[in-house]
Protein backbone atom coordinates (compact mmCIF):
# COMPACT_ATOMS: atom_id res chain seq x y z
CA UNK A 1 0.00 0.00 0.00
CA UNK A 2 1.28 3.45 -0.79
CA UNK A 3 1.32 6.28 1.72
CA UNK A 4 -1.77 7.86 0.19
CA UNK A 5 -3.79 4.68 0.50
CA UNK A 6 -2.50 4.17 4.02
CA UNK A 7 -3.59 7.65 5.03
CA UNK A 8 -6.99 7.21 3.42
CA UNK A 9 -7.43 3.95 5.23
CA UNK A 10 -6.48 5.53 8.56
CA UNK A 11 -8.83 8.46 7.90
CA UNK A 12 -11.69 6.15 7.03
CA UNK A 13 -11.27 4.25 10.25
CA UNK A 14 -11.05 7.55 12.12
CA UNK A 15 -7.68 6.76 13.62
CA UNK A 16 -6.33 10.14 12.59
CA UNK A 17 -8.08 13.41 11.80
CA UNK A 18 -7.76 15.23 8.43
CA UNK A 19 -5.34 17.74 9.96
CA UNK A 20 -2.90 15.06 11.04
CA UNK A 21 -3.20 13.41 7.65
CA UNK A 22 -2.23 16.66 5.99
CA UNK A 23 0.70 17.07 8.34
CA UNK A 24 1.93 13.55 7.66
CA UNK A 25 1.68 14.16 3.92
CA UNK A 26 3.69 17.35 4.21
CA UNK A 27 6.28 15.67 6.37
CA UNK A 28 6.93 12.90 3.89
CA UNK A 29 6.88 15.31 0.99
CA UNK A 30 9.51 17.42 2.72
CA UNK A 31 11.56 14.36 3.54
CA UNK A 32 11.56 13.17 -0.05
CA UNK A 33 12.69 16.60 -1.17
CA UNK A 34 15.54 16.52 1.32
CA UNK A 35 16.65 13.16 -0.01
CA UNK A 36 16.88 14.30 -3.60
CA UNK A 37 18.72 17.47 -2.63
CA UNK A 38 21.13 15.33 -0.65
CA UNK A 39 21.99 13.41 -3.76
CA UNK A 40 22.48 16.66 -5.59
CA UNK A 41 24.87 17.91 -2.95
CA UNK A 42 26.87 14.70 -2.98
CA UNK A 43 27.34 15.09 -6.72
CA UNK A 44 28.17 18.77 -6.28
CA UNK A 45 30.84 17.91 -3.72
CA UNK A 46 32.28 15.17 -5.90
CA UNK A 47 32.26 17.56 -8.85
CA UNK A 48 34.14 20.24 -6.92
CA UNK A 49 36.72 17.71 -5.86
CA UNK A 50 37.23 16.57 -9.45
CA UNK A 51 37.52 20.14 -10.71
CA UNK A 52 39.92 21.04 -7.91
CA UNK A 53 42.04 17.95 -8.53
CA UNK A 54 42.09 18.72 -12.26
CA UNK A 55 43.32 22.26 -11.66
CA UNK A 56 45.95 20.94 -9.27
CA UNK A 57 47.17 18.46 -11.88
CA UNK A 58 47.35 21.19 -14.52
CA UNK A 59 49.36 23.32 -12.14
CA UNK A 60 51.61 20.45 -11.16
CA UNK A 61 52.34 19.71 -14.81
CA UNK A 62 53.90 23.11 -15.33
CA UNK A 63 54.96 23.37 -11.73
CA UNK A 64 58.67 23.77 -12.36
CA UNK A 65 58.11 26.68 -14.75
CA UNK A 66 56.63 28.88 -12.06
CA UNK A 67 58.84 30.99 -9.83
CA UNK A 68 58.83 30.02 -6.17
CA UNK A 69 56.68 32.95 -5.09
CA UNK A 70 53.84 32.00 -7.43
CA UNK A 71 54.02 28.39 -6.32
CA UNK A 72 53.70 29.49 -2.69
CA UNK A 73 50.65 31.59 -3.50
CA UNK A 74 49.04 28.76 -5.45
CA UNK A 75 49.48 26.51 -2.43
CA UNK A 76 46.98 28.66 -0.52
CA UNK A 77 44.23 28.54 -3.12
CA UNK A 78 42.46 25.26 -2.24
CA UNK A 79 42.45 26.26 1.42
CA UNK A 80 41.16 29.78 0.72
CA UNK A 81 38.38 28.55 -1.57
CA UNK A 82 37.18 25.91 0.87
CA UNK A 83 37.30 28.40 3.74
CA UNK A 84 35.17 30.87 1.78
CA UNK A 85 32.63 28.16 1.05
CA UNK A 86 32.76 27.33 4.75
CA UNK A 87 31.87 30.91 5.64
CA UNK A 88 28.95 30.82 3.20
CA UNK A 89 27.75 27.54 4.70
CA UNK A 90 27.89 28.98 8.22
CA UNK A 91 25.74 31.93 7.12
CA UNK A 92 23.28 30.21 4.82
CA UNK A 93 23.31 26.45 5.18
CA UNK A 94 24.40 25.82 8.74
CA UNK A 95 21.41 23.54 9.31
CA UNK A 96 21.90 21.37 6.27
CA UNK A 97 23.97 18.38 7.23
CA UNK A 98 25.42 17.54 3.90
CA UNK A 99 26.78 21.04 3.42
CA UNK A 100 28.40 21.19 6.85
CA UNK A 101 29.82 17.66 6.58
CA UNK A 102 31.31 18.12 3.15
CA UNK A 103 32.66 21.64 3.60
CA UNK A 104 34.42 20.74 6.85
CA UNK A 105 36.16 17.87 5.11
CA UNK A 106 37.01 20.13 2.17
CA UNK A 107 38.67 22.70 4.46
CA UNK A 108 40.62 20.00 6.22
CA UNK A 109 41.89 18.70 2.87
CA UNK A 110 42.61 22.25 1.70
CA UNK A 111 44.84 22.58 4.75
CA UNK A 112 46.82 19.41 4.10
CA UNK A 113 47.20 20.29 0.42
CA UNK A 114 48.67 23.67 1.40
CA UNK A 115 51.00 22.12 3.97
CA UNK A 116 52.17 19.38 1.61
CA UNK A 117 52.78 21.81 -1.24
CA UNK A 118 54.82 24.14 0.96
CA UNK A 119 56.89 21.18 2.18
CA UNK A 120 57.57 20.27 -1.44
CA UNK A 121 58.36 23.76 -2.66
CA UNK A 122 60.99 24.30 0.02
CA UNK A 123 62.11 20.66 0.32
CA UNK A 124 61.26 20.68 4.01
CA UNK A 125 62.41 17.47 5.67
CA UNK A 126 59.45 16.81 7.86
CA UNK A 127 58.29 13.40 8.90
CA UNK A 128 54.79 12.55 7.78
CA UNK A 129 53.72 12.05 11.40
CA UNK A 130 54.65 15.65 12.22
CA UNK A 131 52.59 16.81 9.26
CA UNK A 132 49.66 14.68 10.37
CA UNK A 133 49.85 16.00 13.93
CA UNK A 134 49.44 19.62 12.84
CA UNK A 135 46.84 18.67 10.28
CA UNK A 136 44.72 17.07 13.00
CA UNK A 137 45.29 19.84 15.57
CA UNK A 138 44.30 22.57 13.12
CA UNK A 139 41.28 20.59 11.87
CA UNK A 140 39.77 19.66 15.23
CA UNK A 141 37.95 23.02 15.70
CA UNK A 142 36.17 22.37 12.39
CA UNK A 143 34.54 19.30 13.92
CA UNK A 144 32.95 21.44 16.63
CA UNK A 145 32.12 24.46 14.47
CA UNK A 146 30.36 22.43 11.79
CA UNK A 147 29.28 19.55 14.07
CA UNK A 148 30.78 17.30 11.46
CA UNK A 149 30.52 13.61 12.32
CA UNK A 150 32.45 12.42 9.30
CA UNK A 151 35.37 14.76 9.90
CA UNK A 152 35.42 13.76 13.57
CA UNK A 153 35.68 10.10 12.67
CA UNK A 154 38.30 10.84 10.05
CA UNK A 155 40.41 12.73 12.60
CA UNK A 156 40.12 9.87 15.10
CA UNK A 157 41.47 7.56 12.40
CA UNK A 158 44.23 10.03 11.51
CA UNK A 159 45.31 10.34 15.12
CA UNK A 160 45.48 6.55 15.31
CA UNK A 161 47.76 6.72 12.28
CA UNK A 162 49.87 9.27 14.17
CA UNK A 163 50.05 6.87 17.11
CA UNK A 164 51.22 4.01 14.88
CA UNK A 165 53.92 6.23 13.37
CA UNK A 166 55.24 7.05 16.84
CA UNK A 167 54.62 3.64 18.33
CA UNK A 168 58.03 3.25 19.95
CA UNK A 169 58.84 6.89 20.64
CA UNK A 170 57.92 9.14 23.54
CA UNK A 171 55.70 11.12 21.26
CA UNK A 172 52.85 8.66 21.65
CA UNK A 173 51.74 10.84 24.56
CA UNK A 174 50.87 13.54 22.07
CA UNK A 175 48.29 11.11 20.75
CA UNK A 176 46.49 11.44 24.07
CA UNK A 177 46.29 15.18 23.50
CA UNK A 178 44.62 14.72 20.10
CA UNK A 179 42.35 12.13 21.65
CA UNK A 180 41.32 14.38 24.56
CA UNK A 181 40.55 17.23 22.17
CA UNK A 182 38.28 14.98 20.12
CA UNK A 183 36.69 13.17 23.03
CA UNK A 184 34.00 15.77 23.94
CA UNK A 185 32.58 15.50 20.44
CA UNK A 186 32.39 11.72 20.66
CA UNK A 187 30.85 12.00 24.12
CA UNK A 188 28.19 14.31 22.72
CA UNK A 189 27.34 11.71 20.11
CA UNK A 190 27.01 9.03 22.79
CA UNK A 191 24.67 11.28 24.78
CA UNK A 192 22.55 12.01 21.75
CA UNK A 193 22.46 8.30 21.04
CA UNK A 194 20.60 7.74 24.33
CA UNK A 195 17.63 9.68 22.92
CA UNK A 196 17.50 8.49 19.36
CA UNK A 197 19.17 5.22 18.58
CA UNK A 198 19.69 5.75 14.92
CA UNK A 199 23.26 6.86 14.56
CA UNK A 200 25.11 4.20 12.61
CA UNK A 201 28.12 6.51 12.63
CA UNK A 202 28.51 6.13 16.35
CA UNK A 203 29.46 2.44 16.04
CA UNK A 204 32.28 3.32 13.68
CA UNK A 205 33.43 5.82 16.28
CA UNK A 206 33.30 3.16 18.98
CA UNK A 207 35.36 0.69 16.98
CA UNK A 208 37.92 3.27 15.96
CA UNK A 209 38.32 4.47 19.53
CA UNK A 210 38.40 0.98 21.03
CA UNK A 211 41.08 -0.21 18.61
CA UNK A 212 43.22 2.91 18.87
CA UNK A 213 43.04 2.87 22.66
CA UNK A 214 44.22 -0.72 22.59
CA UNK A 215 47.12 0.34 20.36
CA UNK A 216 47.90 3.13 22.79
CA UNK A 217 48.04 0.69 25.69
CA UNK A 218 50.36 -1.59 23.71
CA UNK A 219 52.54 1.38 22.88
CA UNK A 220 52.47 2.58 26.50
CA UNK A 221 53.60 -0.72 28.02
CA UNK A 222 55.68 -1.55 24.91
CA UNK A 223 58.69 -3.59 26.00
CA UNK A 224 57.49 -4.61 29.44
CA UNK A 225 54.20 -5.91 28.17
CA UNK A 226 53.63 -9.21 29.93
CA UNK A 227 50.96 -11.86 29.64
CA UNK A 228 49.40 -10.65 32.88
CA UNK A 229 49.06 -7.08 31.65
CA UNK A 230 47.51 -8.39 28.45
CA UNK A 231 44.92 -10.37 30.40
CA UNK A 232 44.34 -7.29 32.55
CA UNK A 233 43.76 -5.04 29.55
CA UNK A 234 41.48 -7.58 27.88
CA UNK A 235 39.41 -7.98 31.02
CA UNK A 236 39.09 -4.22 31.37
CA UNK A 237 37.86 -4.08 27.79
CA UNK A 238 35.36 -6.80 28.55
CA UNK A 239 34.22 -5.04 31.73
CA UNK A 240 33.80 -1.71 29.93
CA UNK A 241 31.63 -3.49 27.39
CA UNK A 242 29.59 -5.28 30.04
CA UNK A 243 29.27 -2.45 32.58
CA UNK A 244 29.11 0.71 30.53
CA UNK A 245 27.99 0.00 26.97
CA UNK A 246 25.89 -3.04 27.92
CA UNK A 247 24.91 -3.79 24.33
CA UNK A 248 24.97 -7.35 23.08
CA UNK A 249 25.48 -6.75 19.40
CA UNK A 250 28.99 -7.34 18.08
CA UNK A 251 28.98 -4.21 15.93
CA UNK A 252 27.68 -1.98 18.72
CA UNK A 253 29.95 -3.15 21.50
CA UNK A 254 33.58 -3.37 20.40
CA UNK A 255 34.98 -3.42 23.96
CA UNK A 256 33.11 -6.54 25.02
CA UNK A 257 33.94 -8.47 21.88
CA UNK A 258 37.59 -7.44 21.71
CA UNK A 259 37.87 -8.70 25.29
CA UNK A 260 36.10 -11.97 24.55
CA UNK A 261 37.89 -12.72 21.29
CA UNK A 262 41.20 -11.77 22.90
CA UNK A 263 40.82 -14.14 25.82
CA UNK A 264 39.59 -16.98 23.58
CA UNK A 265 42.64 -16.39 21.38
CA UNK A 266 44.87 -16.61 24.46
CA UNK A 267 43.23 -19.90 25.45
CA UNK A 268 43.94 -21.32 22.01
CA UNK A 269 47.56 -20.16 22.22
CA UNK A 270 47.82 -21.69 25.67
CA UNK A 271 47.01 -25.11 24.23
CA UNK A 272 50.38 -25.16 22.48
CA UNK A 273 53.52 -26.25 24.21
CA UNK A 274 55.66 -23.48 22.69
CA UNK A 275 53.54 -20.90 24.49
CA UNK A 276 54.78 -22.07 27.88
CA UNK A 277 58.29 -23.09 26.90
CA UNK A 278 60.04 -19.89 27.83
CA UNK A 279 59.14 -20.13 31.46
CA UNK A 280 61.69 -17.60 32.63
CA UNK A 281 60.39 -14.83 30.42
CA UNK A 282 56.82 -15.65 31.42
CA UNK A 283 57.49 -15.26 35.09
CA UNK A 284 60.15 -12.60 35.28
CA UNK A 285 57.92 -9.61 35.31
CA UNK A 286 59.14 -6.11 34.71
CA UNK A 287 56.86 -4.08 36.86
CA UNK A 288 56.76 -0.37 37.07
CA UNK A 289 54.43 -0.05 39.95
CA UNK A 290 51.98 2.66 39.10
CA UNK A 291 50.55 1.64 35.69
CA UNK A 292 50.21 -2.04 36.63
CA UNK A 293 48.68 -1.14 39.97
CA UNK A 294 46.17 1.15 38.31
CA UNK A 295 45.34 -1.66 35.90
CA UNK A 296 44.80 -4.10 38.76
CA UNK A 297 42.60 -1.66 40.70
CA UNK A 298 40.52 -0.98 37.62
CA UNK A 299 40.01 -4.70 37.02
CA UNK A 300 38.98 -5.32 40.63
CA UNK A 301 36.62 -2.33 40.69
CA UNK A 302 35.11 -3.41 37.38
CA UNK A 303 34.45 -6.90 38.69
CA UNK A 304 32.99 -5.58 41.96
CA UNK A 305 30.67 -3.28 40.05
CA UNK A 306 29.58 -6.15 37.83
CA UNK A 307 28.91 -8.45 40.80
CA UNK A 308 26.94 -5.84 42.78
CA UNK A 309 24.91 -4.83 39.74
CA UNK A 310 24.03 -8.43 38.92
CA UNK A 311 23.11 -9.23 42.53
CA UNK A 312 20.69 -6.32 42.61
CA UNK A 313 18.91 -7.49 39.50
CA UNK A 314 19.24 -11.12 40.62
CA UNK A 315 20.98 -12.17 37.45
CA UNK A 316 23.81 -14.67 37.14
CA UNK A 317 27.25 -13.37 36.41
CA UNK A 318 27.94 -13.47 32.68
CA UNK A 319 29.77 -16.58 31.57
CA UNK A 320 32.61 -14.74 29.90
CA UNK A 321 33.58 -12.88 33.05
CA UNK A 322 34.89 -16.14 34.54
CA UNK A 323 37.20 -16.86 31.63
CA UNK A 324 39.67 -14.14 32.60
CA UNK A 325 40.06 -15.47 36.13
CA UNK A 326 40.24 -19.00 34.77
CA UNK A 327 43.07 -18.04 32.44
CA UNK A 328 45.06 -16.54 35.31
CA UNK A 329 44.74 -19.89 37.14
CA UNK A 330 46.15 -21.74 34.12
CA UNK A 331 48.94 -19.20 33.89
CA UNK A 332 49.84 -19.75 37.55
CA UNK A 333 49.78 -23.52 37.10
CA UNK A 334 52.59 -23.13 34.53
CA UNK A 335 54.83 -22.21 37.45
CA UNK A 336 54.43 -25.68 38.95
CA UNK A 337 53.86 -27.97 35.97
CA UNK A 338 55.65 -28.58 32.70
CA UNK A 339 52.55 -29.76 30.91
CA UNK A 340 50.37 -26.67 31.24
CA UNK A 341 49.46 -26.87 27.58
CA UNK A 342 47.34 -29.91 28.41
CA UNK A 343 45.28 -27.70 30.71
CA UNK A 344 45.11 -25.33 27.76
CA UNK A 345 43.80 -28.04 25.45
CA UNK A 346 41.25 -29.19 28.01
CA UNK A 347 40.02 -25.68 28.68
CA UNK A 348 39.61 -24.84 24.99
CA UNK A 349 37.58 -28.01 24.54
CA UNK A 350 35.44 -27.34 27.61
CA UNK A 351 34.88 -23.68 26.75
CA UNK A 352 33.91 -24.28 23.13
CA UNK A 353 31.61 -27.16 24.04
CA UNK A 354 30.06 -25.00 26.73
CA UNK A 355 29.53 -22.12 24.32
CA UNK A 356 27.88 -24.41 21.77
CA UNK A 357 25.52 -25.83 24.39
CA UNK A 358 24.74 -22.38 25.78
CA UNK A 359 24.08 -20.98 22.32
CA UNK A 360 21.72 -23.84 21.61
CA UNK A 361 19.85 -23.40 24.88
CA UNK A 362 19.53 -19.65 24.76
CA UNK A 363 18.84 -19.72 21.02
CA UNK A 364 21.73 -17.37 20.36
CA UNK A 365 23.43 -18.01 17.07
CA UNK A 366 26.38 -15.72 17.85
CA UNK A 367 27.36 -17.62 20.99
CA UNK A 368 26.91 -20.96 19.23
CA UNK A 369 29.11 -19.87 16.35
CA UNK A 370 31.72 -18.44 18.70
CA UNK A 371 31.99 -21.89 20.30
CA UNK A 372 32.14 -23.65 16.95
CA UNK A 373 34.70 -21.26 15.52
CA UNK A 374 36.99 -21.41 18.52
CA UNK A 375 36.77 -25.21 18.44
CA UNK A 376 37.63 -25.33 14.76
CA UNK A 377 40.46 -22.82 15.02
CA UNK A 378 41.84 -24.99 17.78
CA UNK A 379 41.59 -28.13 15.62
CA UNK A 380 42.98 -26.47 12.51
CA UNK A 381 45.96 -24.87 14.22
CA UNK A 382 46.83 -28.13 15.94
CA UNK A 383 46.61 -29.96 12.66
CA UNK A 384 49.07 -27.54 11.14
CA UNK A 385 51.53 -27.94 13.97
CA UNK A 386 51.93 -31.68 13.50
CA UNK A 387 53.16 -33.85 10.65
CA UNK A 388 49.86 -34.97 9.31
CA UNK A 389 49.47 -35.74 5.63
CA UNK A 390 47.60 -33.37 3.39
CA UNK A 391 44.90 -35.94 2.73
CA UNK A 392 43.91 -36.15 6.38
CA UNK A 393 44.14 -32.42 6.77
CA UNK A 394 41.96 -31.90 3.73
CA UNK A 395 39.38 -34.38 5.01
CA UNK A 396 39.44 -32.71 8.42
CA UNK A 397 38.86 -29.26 6.91
CA UNK A 398 36.01 -30.50 4.73
CA UNK A 399 34.37 -32.22 7.68
CA UNK A 400 34.67 -29.18 9.92
CA UNK A 401 33.24 -26.98 7.16
CA UNK A 402 30.28 -29.29 6.66
CA UNK A 403 29.60 -29.45 10.40
CA UNK A 404 29.77 -25.65 10.67
CA UNK A 405 27.29 -25.12 7.86
CA UNK A 406 25.08 -28.02 8.95
CA UNK A 407 24.70 -26.92 12.55
CA UNK A 408 23.93 -23.36 11.51
CA UNK A 409 21.35 -24.51 8.98
CA UNK A 410 19.68 -26.81 11.49
CA UNK A 411 19.70 -24.10 14.12
CA UNK A 412 18.23 -21.41 11.89
CA UNK A 413 15.50 -23.80 10.79
CA UNK A 414 14.62 -24.55 14.40
CA UNK A 415 14.46 -20.87 15.30
CA UNK A 416 12.10 -20.20 12.42
CA UNK A 417 9.78 -22.89 13.63
Amino acid sequence: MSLKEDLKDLLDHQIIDPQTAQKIKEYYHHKAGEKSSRLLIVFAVLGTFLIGAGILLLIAHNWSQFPRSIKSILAFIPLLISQSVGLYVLFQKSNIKFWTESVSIAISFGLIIALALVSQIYHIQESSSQLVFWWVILSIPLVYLFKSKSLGLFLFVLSAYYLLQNFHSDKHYLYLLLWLLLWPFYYGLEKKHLHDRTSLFLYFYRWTIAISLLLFVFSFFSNRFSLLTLVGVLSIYYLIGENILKERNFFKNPYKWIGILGILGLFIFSSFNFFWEKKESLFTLQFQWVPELVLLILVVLGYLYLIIKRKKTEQDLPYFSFLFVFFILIYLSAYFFDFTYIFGILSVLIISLNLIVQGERKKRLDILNLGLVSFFIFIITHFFSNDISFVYRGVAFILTGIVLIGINYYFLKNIKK
Partner: protein
Amino acid sequence: MRNSRSFLVISFLILSLIQLFYVYNKIRIQERIINNGETYLFVMQENDPLDLLRGTYLELYFKENSFKIKDSFGLKPNQRIWVELRKDADGFAHIKQLYLDIPKNLNQVVEAKIGSVSGRNDETIVYIDYPFKRFYYNEGVAKQLDSLQFQTSSDTKTSFARVIVWKGNAIVDEIYINGIRINK
Protein backbone atom coordinates in the same frame (compact mmCIF):
# COMPACT_ATOMS: atom_id res chain seq x y z
CA MET B 1 20.14 32.27 17.96
CA ARG B 2 21.71 35.25 16.24
CA ASN B 3 24.32 35.54 18.96
CA SER B 4 25.34 31.94 18.70
CA ARG B 5 25.67 32.30 14.95
CA SER B 6 27.92 35.32 15.16
CA PHE B 7 29.97 33.46 17.75
CA LEU B 8 30.31 30.58 15.31
CA VAL B 9 31.27 32.86 12.45
CA ILE B 10 33.83 34.75 14.50
CA SER B 11 35.42 31.54 15.78
CA PHE B 12 35.49 30.20 12.25
CA LEU B 13 37.20 33.35 11.00
CA ILE B 14 39.78 33.12 13.78
CA LEU B 15 40.39 29.46 12.99
CA SER B 16 40.76 30.22 9.29
CA LEU B 17 43.30 32.91 10.06
CA ILE B 18 45.25 30.54 12.29
CA GLN B 19 45.29 27.91 9.54
CA LEU B 20 46.42 30.42 6.94
CA PHE B 21 49.01 31.85 9.28
CA TYR B 22 50.43 28.42 10.06
CA VAL B 23 50.96 27.74 6.37
CA TYR B 24 52.29 31.27 5.79
CA ASN B 25 54.67 30.96 8.71
CA LYS B 26 56.21 27.85 7.20
CA ILE B 27 56.88 29.79 4.03
CA ARG B 28 58.23 32.75 6.00
CA ILE B 29 60.75 30.64 7.90
CA GLN B 30 62.06 29.10 4.69
CA GLU B 31 62.21 32.45 2.90
CA ARG B 32 64.21 33.88 5.78
CA ILE B 33 66.79 31.13 5.38
CA ILE B 34 66.96 31.68 1.63
CA ASN B 35 67.28 35.45 1.89
CA ASN B 36 69.79 35.62 4.72
CA GLY B 37 71.68 32.37 4.39
CA GLU B 38 74.97 31.49 2.87
CA THR B 39 75.29 29.04 -0.02
CA TYR B 40 77.38 25.90 0.22
CA LEU B 41 77.92 23.26 -2.42
CA PHE B 42 77.74 19.68 -1.19
CA VAL B 43 79.35 17.11 -3.48
CA MET B 44 77.14 14.09 -4.00
CA GLN B 45 78.33 10.53 -4.03
CA GLU B 46 78.43 8.66 -7.28
CA ASN B 47 75.35 6.64 -7.56
CA ASP B 48 72.97 5.60 -10.23
CA PRO B 49 70.62 8.60 -10.37
CA LEU B 50 67.63 6.29 -10.58
CA ASP B 51 68.62 4.82 -7.24
CA LEU B 52 67.90 8.19 -5.71
CA LEU B 53 64.23 8.03 -6.60
CA ARG B 54 62.02 7.61 -3.56
CA GLY B 55 58.52 8.05 -4.88
CA THR B 56 57.97 11.75 -4.61
CA TYR B 57 61.50 12.83 -3.79
CA LEU B 58 65.15 12.10 -4.46
CA GLU B 59 67.24 10.92 -1.56
CA LEU B 60 70.59 12.65 -1.72
CA TYR B 61 73.86 11.15 -0.48
CA PHE B 62 76.73 13.50 0.18
CA LYS B 63 80.45 12.83 0.19
CA GLU B 64 81.11 15.11 3.11
CA ASN B 65 79.06 13.03 5.49
CA SER B 66 81.52 11.80 8.09
CA PHE B 67 83.94 13.26 10.59
CA LYS B 68 86.79 11.65 12.50
CA ILE B 69 87.10 12.28 16.20
CA LYS B 70 89.41 10.82 18.83
CA ASP B 71 86.92 9.78 21.44
CA SER B 72 83.42 8.39 20.94
CA PHE B 73 81.94 10.64 23.70
CA GLY B 74 79.14 8.07 24.03
CA LEU B 75 77.56 9.29 20.80
CA LYS B 76 74.47 7.48 19.66
CA PRO B 77 72.54 7.33 16.40
CA ASN B 78 69.71 9.87 16.12
CA GLN B 79 71.36 12.15 18.64
CA ARG B 80 71.18 15.84 17.73
CA ILE B 81 74.43 17.39 16.65
CA TRP B 82 75.57 20.78 15.30
CA VAL B 83 77.94 20.76 12.33
CA GLU B 84 80.15 23.74 11.67
CA LEU B 85 81.02 24.09 7.99
CA ARG B 86 83.83 25.71 6.09
CA LYS B 87 83.96 26.61 2.42
CA ASP B 88 86.85 25.95 0.11
CA ALA B 89 87.86 28.29 -2.74
CA ASP B 90 85.28 26.76 -5.11
CA GLY B 91 82.46 27.10 -2.62
CA PHE B 92 82.31 23.41 -1.69
CA ALA B 93 81.46 22.57 1.89
CA HIS B 94 83.68 20.74 4.36
CA ILE B 95 83.06 19.87 7.97
CA LYS B 96 85.10 22.02 10.33
CA GLN B 97 83.96 20.67 13.66
CA LEU B 98 81.04 19.13 15.53
CA TYR B 99 79.19 20.44 18.56
CA LEU B 100 77.23 18.29 20.97
CA ASP B 101 75.34 21.29 22.35
CA ILE B 102 73.99 24.24 20.50
CA PRO B 103 76.93 26.61 19.90
CA LYS B 104 76.69 30.28 20.77
CA ASN B 105 77.70 31.40 17.33
CA LEU B 106 75.35 29.77 14.86
CA ASN B 107 76.97 31.18 11.75
CA GLN B 108 78.00 28.44 9.33
CA VAL B 109 76.34 25.84 11.53
CA VAL B 110 73.77 23.21 10.52
CA GLU B 111 71.68 21.28 12.99
CA ALA B 112 71.75 17.60 12.04
CA LYS B 113 71.44 14.11 13.48
CA ILE B 114 73.97 11.39 13.96
CA GLY B 115 73.36 8.66 11.39
CA SER B 116 75.76 6.13 12.81
CA VAL B 117 79.00 5.88 14.76
CA SER B 118 81.80 3.47 14.01
CA GLY B 119 84.84 3.09 16.19
CA ARG B 120 88.20 1.62 15.31
CA ASN B 121 91.25 1.80 17.56
CA ASP B 122 91.50 5.35 18.91
CA GLU B 123 89.48 6.72 16.08
CA THR B 124 85.76 7.24 15.92
CA ILE B 125 83.97 8.10 12.72
CA VAL B 126 80.67 9.93 13.06
CA TYR B 127 78.31 9.71 10.10
CA ILE B 128 76.02 12.67 9.77
CA ASP B 129 72.40 12.67 8.75
CA TYR B 130 71.82 16.07 7.15
CA PRO B 131 68.37 17.70 7.27
CA PHE B 132 68.47 18.34 3.51
CA LYS B 133 68.49 14.83 2.14
CA ARG B 134 65.20 15.09 0.32
CA PHE B 135 64.66 16.79 -2.99
CA TYR B 136 61.03 16.83 -4.14
CA TYR B 137 60.47 16.74 -7.87
CA ASN B 138 57.75 16.33 -10.43
CA GLU B 139 57.37 13.57 -12.97
CA GLY B 140 59.58 15.20 -15.59
CA VAL B 141 62.64 14.76 -13.41
CA ALA B 142 62.50 10.98 -13.49
CA LYS B 143 62.86 11.04 -17.30
CA GLN B 144 65.67 13.54 -17.02
CA LEU B 145 67.50 11.30 -14.55
CA ASP B 146 67.05 8.31 -16.80
CA SER B 147 69.26 9.92 -19.44
CA LEU B 148 71.97 10.77 -16.95
CA GLN B 149 74.69 8.81 -15.26
CA PHE B 150 77.00 9.87 -12.53
CA GLN B 151 80.54 10.22 -13.72
CA THR B 152 82.73 7.59 -12.22
CA SER B 153 85.90 9.55 -11.63
CA SER B 154 85.86 10.88 -8.11
CA ASP B 155 87.85 14.04 -8.79
CA THR B 156 85.11 15.72 -10.73
CA LYS B 157 82.86 17.87 -8.67
CA THR B 158 80.07 18.16 -11.15
CA SER B 159 77.34 16.45 -9.12
CA PHE B 160 76.40 18.52 -6.14
CA ALA B 161 73.60 20.18 -4.24
CA ARG B 162 73.33 23.88 -3.56
CA VAL B 163 72.39 24.24 0.09
CA ILE B 164 71.52 27.46 1.85
CA VAL B 165 72.51 27.62 5.50
CA TRP B 166 71.34 30.14 8.05
CA LYS B 167 71.61 29.97 11.84
CA GLY B 168 71.54 26.22 12.11
CA ASN B 169 68.83 25.75 9.52
CA ALA B 170 69.43 24.58 5.99
CA ILE B 171 67.43 23.96 2.85
CA VAL B 172 68.46 22.42 -0.43
CA ASP B 173 67.92 24.86 -3.24
CA GLU B 174 69.05 23.15 -6.42
CA ILE B 175 70.83 20.00 -7.45
CA TYR B 176 73.21 19.44 -10.34
CA ILE B 177 74.06 16.07 -11.77
CA ASN B 178 77.01 15.99 -14.18
CA GLY B 179 76.83 19.74 -14.24
CA ILE B 180 73.22 19.68 -15.43
CA ARG B 181 70.65 21.43 -13.29
CA ILE B 182 67.78 19.20 -12.30
CA ASN B 183 64.42 20.91 -12.47
CA LYS B 184 62.15 20.44 -9.52
